[in-house]
């Protein structure tokens, strides 16, 4: 029973972790160039205003 539970818990973690690691290795090995697309430097000028509430509406709407 103990062993059965141990396998039940260990199997998905082992498969999941291996899949994640191998996928990372595969991406690094076979996919060159990032897929992030356009890089835009927002530090040059985005002027952001932020407000958070548990209810609507907001003062600037």
């Amino acid at each position, binding site marked *: 029973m103990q062993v059965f539970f141990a396998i039940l818990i260990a199997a998905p*973690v*082992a498969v999941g972790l291996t899949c994640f690691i191998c*996928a990372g290795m595969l991406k690094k090995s076979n*996919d060159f160039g990032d897929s992030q697309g356009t890089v835009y430097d927002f530090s040059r000028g985005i002027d952001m205003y*932020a407000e*958070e509430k548990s209810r609507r509406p907001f003062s600037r709407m």
Partner: protein
Amino acid sequence: MTETCPNCAAPLLFNPSNGMLDCKMCGSSFKPEEIKGAEELNQAKADEYKLIGLDETENTESIESENLKTEAELQGEKIYGDPDSEENFYDSSVYICNQCGAEIAVNTTEASTACIYCGCPNIVFDRVSRMRKPTYIIPFKVTKEEAEEKVRSIVKKGFFIPKEIKNFSTDCVRGIYIPYWLTDLNMDLSMEVKGRVGSGKSSHTEYFYRAGKCDFHKLTNDASVTLADMSSAKLEPYDFEDLANFDKNYLAGFYSDIADVEKVDGERLAVDKARELMQEQFMNSIKASNKQIITQDMKRTVNNVESAMLPAWFVTFSYKGTPHTILVNGQTGKVSGAVPWNKGLFIGIFAAICAVFFVAFTLITELWVPAMFGSKSSDSGKLVAMIIAGGIALLIAGIRKITKVMSAIKLTQSQSMFGYVKKRQGDL
């Protein structure tokens, strides 16, 4: 058409390593701006005739047609320039690929042997075409040999790359100028987002308001339908420090793709891109789950839309009968593309790592299970559920990553690009 050497009349080709036009026949080198082509000389003569009044009729006609332009057209010209002006064109040879339908301008005397997009040898020289001059150009800085070497060195490092690909023999390496629209615009975006914050019983819906302004300077959008948008996006970023006014001498020895995305569409794509980039910034600033945009308000002003040609190398090789095309940024040398993997090796490594993890986790869990069953707390059950859920989440994340690599490989293979082109043309 290519310029010829003033000393021996052989064709001049642009050399990316020194930024000069080189003559392979007599070894002379010239700065692109030093070479004044026959076209410019003819234009100068025509201007001379106009000055002495020999071309008065043409002048009168142009003034009359100018008066007939509507206010909207004149407003458009402020942004777009006069589209019909003779100064906005140059001559180039154009070929059409019989397989994928790509139209490529060849700015060299060298005859092309294969299509740069699909590798198909069935290309037909179609015509000498009047091409619209772009405003700017970034000249090639990376040479053909350097581009090929960069691809080779990056392919050799890949752990899962098959030996046949590591020692690939190049089918062709082509330098191509890709047309882009560069847009200057101001965007004012505000949006209201709802999302869940907290966990368990304290989880609740929170509303977020984000507003911001941003001035986008030279936002890029590729103006080629033939080249997949994902491929051109992967080639970026380009460094606009090297942006020069267009000079057709920079094209000597290279291909140039024909811009088939209209300026108006380029402007629309730039607005969409700017909005998406700002949205992404706003969403990243919100710490919540299940985020949903409720309302959105956008104001934008497009200040300028200009065309540019940006350089890229297309390195094509065959693997198992399928052509693969790796792209190299012709200015920065950034390599983009994906190649098939050695499936046997991948499965072997996967099985080995998985076996090690499985044995280790089983031993750890076996020691921990008695303690878990011994305690009557419900926290142990929750912990087990969380560990299993974590494993499944990692599995899903891994599968997604592998799927992305597979789509990138498909993009590198010509058949997908061919299908993409056909789809965009409405043939499928």
